[in-house]
């Protein structure tokens, strides 16, 4: 054995000892792991990267306050790359390999549906921060985004009562969220006495970019003498060419207002907003909300992201609420054990960013105010209307024939996500 190899061996063993020691140190300073499951590459990176950063900021802030249960929090970030099956794999990896007791993540409904069986099988906890179509209530998922009755229905009410809209265009991208939402809205409008002839429903493929004929159809539909509005569930990327075409064909918000459920501050930051002024969006939070909590949050966000121009949006607020609820529930339960947390979560109330409190309800949805904002030149929203109180999220819509009689209550003794009040049976089909 030469001197060189000997030296090498000595060095390696030294390294090994050192690494073992550091591992020991880490063991001594035990952390609580928080899983963050948002796409950092691929199509959805555009929306989800921001949420990953929000989680990192919230965790950093909590650690500054001393962590939870005397332990520091540690974010475990994985990248499911906008690939739906990969979401399930990564969720399993987070729970079984990394040992996280809670996951904050997902954006699209498909990704959530893909994670659901895994999270139920492992009996973990997922916080889902995006507005969605409802018709779901899992024991293991907490829905901090809006259900249709917390976004779509109040928006339609506003248009009907305050603007006097009589003719409706329901335009959406062709997938589950718009289809379900539009089904609910159609049923709702018909229940309110709107004639079927006065409802036009239109679906377009993902990333649709040639809106000429659809916008021209909307224009024709809207020139029949009755006040017309577009309720848009058009998804992310397709919105830019849609609004551009509206502007070019000379349809202003005064003629035919468009109320959107997927266009927020972040989407507007990639858009020339001049032709959009006056169009509407319905959310539970706008960056322009005037409250102390919101000012603090925006300040912290700018400091964390080191960019004064970055905006905040509704799903970020949902994570803010969800994370604080989880912290409170863990402190209430005295442990991060998912089972205990699931029980402790119900009834927990934390401040939201619009100056009130949001509470977790037995159906795993939360109470939120609903705000309607008009787009301004600077890409911000001017709040023109808000619900007088908080609206509790409804897991199963009252306007769909199949789910009218269903309720969800995860408290013992019912403990059911899908209880039929007519047949008095729990089907167990939670999604």
């Amino acid at each position: 054995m030469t001197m060189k190899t000997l030296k090498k061996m000595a060095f390696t063993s030294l390294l090994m000892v050192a690494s073992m020691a550091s591992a020991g140190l880490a063991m001594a300073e035990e952390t609580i792991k928080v899983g963050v499951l948002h796409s950092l590459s691929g199509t959805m990176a555009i929306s989800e990267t921001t949420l990953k950063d929000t989680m990192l900021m919230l965790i950093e802030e909590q650690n500054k306050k001393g962590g939870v249960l005397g332990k520091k929090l540690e974010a475990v970030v994985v990248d499911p790359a906008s690939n739906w099956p990969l979401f399930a794999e990564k969720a399993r990896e987070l729970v079984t390999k990394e040992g996280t007791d809670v996951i904050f993540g997902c954006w699209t409904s498909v990704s959530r549906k893909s994670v659901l069986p895994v999270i139920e099988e492992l009996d973990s906890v997922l916080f889902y921060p995006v507005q969605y179509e409802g018709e779901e209530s899992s024991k293991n998922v907490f829905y901090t985004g809006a259900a249709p009755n917390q976004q779509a229905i109040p928006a339609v009410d506003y248009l009907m009562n305050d603007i006097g809209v009589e003719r409706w265009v329901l335009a959406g991208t062709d997938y589950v969220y718009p289809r379900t939402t539009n089904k609910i809205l159609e049923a709702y409008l018909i229940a309110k006495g709107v004639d079927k002839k006065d409802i036009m429903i239109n679906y377009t493929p993902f990333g649709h970019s040639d809106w000429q004929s659809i916008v021209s159809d909307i224009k024709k539909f809207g020139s029949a003498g009755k006040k017309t509005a577009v309720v848009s569930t058009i998804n992310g990327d397709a919105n830019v060419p849609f609004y551009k075409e509206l502007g070019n064909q000379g349809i202003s918000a005064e003629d035919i207002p468009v109320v959107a459920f997927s266009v927020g501050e972040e989407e507007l930051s990639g858009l020339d907003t001049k032709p959009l002024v006056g169009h509407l969006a319905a959310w539970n939070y706008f960056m322009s909300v005037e409250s102390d909590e919101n000012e603090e949050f925006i300040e912290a966000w700018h400091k964390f992201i080191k960019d004064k121009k970055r905006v905040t949006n509704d799903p970020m607020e949902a994570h803010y609420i969800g994370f604080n609820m989880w912290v409170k529930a863990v402190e209430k339960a005295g442990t991060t054990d998912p089972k205990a947390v699931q029980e402790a979560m119900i009834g927990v109330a934390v401040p939201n960013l619009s100056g009130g409190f949001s509470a977790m309800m037995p159906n795993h949805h939360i109470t939120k105010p609903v705000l309607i904002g008009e787009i301004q030149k600077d890409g911000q929203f001017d709040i023109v209307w808000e619900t007088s109180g908080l609206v509790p999220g409804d897991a199963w819509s009252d306007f769909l024939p199949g789910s009218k009689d269903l309720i969800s209550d995860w408290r013992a003794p019912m403990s059911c996500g899908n209880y039929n009040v007519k047949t008095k049976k729990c089907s167990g089909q939670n999604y």
Partner: protein
Amino acid sequence: MIVHYARPQMIRLLSWLLCLACLGFFQGGFAEVLNLDEAWNTLSKKSYSDKAEAIEAIVQQNPPEALPALKAMLEGQLFYAKSNKALFILREDGDNYLFTPLFGGNTATQENKRGYKKVRINNRLRVQIRQSLASMQLKHEDAAVRLEAVQELLKEPDEETAALIAPLVYEEQDGRVLSAMQTLLAIIQLEQGDEAAQASAIETLSSSLNPSALNALTEYKAPNGELEDSAQAAINKIEAQRDLYAVAETVFFGLSLGSVLALSAIGLAITFGVMGVINMAHGELMMIGAYTTYVVQLLMPNHIGLSIIVAIPAAFIVAGLVGVAIERGIIRFLYGRALETLLATFGISLILQQTVRSIFSPLNRSVETPQWMSGAWQINEVLALTWNRLYIIIFTLLVFTALLMVMKKSTLGLQVRAVSQNRAMARAMGVRSEWVDALTFGLGSGIAGMAGVALSLLTNVGPNLGQAYIIDSFMVVVFGGVGNLWGTLVAGMSLGVVNKVIEPWAGAVMAKILVLVFIILFIQKRPKGLFPQRGRAAED
């Protein structure tokens, strides 16, 4: 022209309108209104319904400040001081904000808007203000402004506006304004005149294309059968005309979609069609072109209109250089191995996407549309062609002609054709085939970059821009016939038109599917596309 109005029915109309005018006057006289100071103060309050009342009061009393204040309010330029609620009009001058007091006084210059708050406005107020402004501008000296004003009033015609317009009809010189005014009067006449007046109103409305005219006729309840028949005939006449224009519109939509398809496919017609390289990164080269536009706009923020022109050669060069780099770095090792090329270029496309994500962030970037490209060319009240689409059609044709010239007339074109037809023979004749390969690929890539400039004005500038167009581009090239530039143009245009013809009755999703099915069937029948290559070049 004037003699035309002195018919007996017009005299009847005049007497009827005089009554209307009286009615309008009395209505104005007795309504209870806020006093002017109160009204101005109310503007800085929060309630929108209070503001609506205030605006009404201001409009009725019409002080000299009303017009500038309402205009500013509409533009979001009306502010009030937080301290004393005094109203100011904001003007931006470079980086400075100039606050001019509405009621006279010294202009304050500030670097920010601190101390002032915007007078908030919502859609309802916008409509109200626009209508009020319209009635104030009916006597404006510019005919275009008058036309706009009348058309604004036409959206919600009522007795008061009719009373306002009635005396103006006799002074109006401009034909378009006049016909709009007559339409408005006829709508009110149809609702309230006697039977003879209704008959003449139907006649006037039957030659108007304005949607309000059609609506008035549709809702019209005729007192007798004769009038009902003539109203129905008028509706039929209007609808026949509208249908005709709808066909023209569909063709335009089709051509414009087609020109986008053709534009994004022309580059591919070179790299895939002529060179035979399956370049999956073609879409990303377009994306690079779009990002180049964004960067050029960042570099010249004060010349948005010019920046688009500058971006075209810039995008050609940037995308072209990237193309040459791809060819020299990877593709040249893979000639003749189609599958490997496909996989390698797919990998390149992913690398390019993620690079852009790292440099520019995954968020979309906004490219501002210059003034001369936004809005539409209003041919009449039903048919309007959007400027940006029109320019893109022209741009596509220019690019196509230029490329055709290069391929047919230049030395490079000759060499490209030589190499693609018989590489060995071309080399024997002294053509540097490798050099030609690189340049050809660069040319195709550069054109993709120019297509990116056009796309940046239509859709998102983001990392996923290319993916949306790659399938369509291949579709167009294969459908048109590989290796034939004319085929690409014709294929792009016809697919666009077919898509737009199907779309209204089948929906956007179904239209796309049907077009794909059609192409599959077509390729089954004619595997070489619309314009197959003939002669020796086609044999291998």
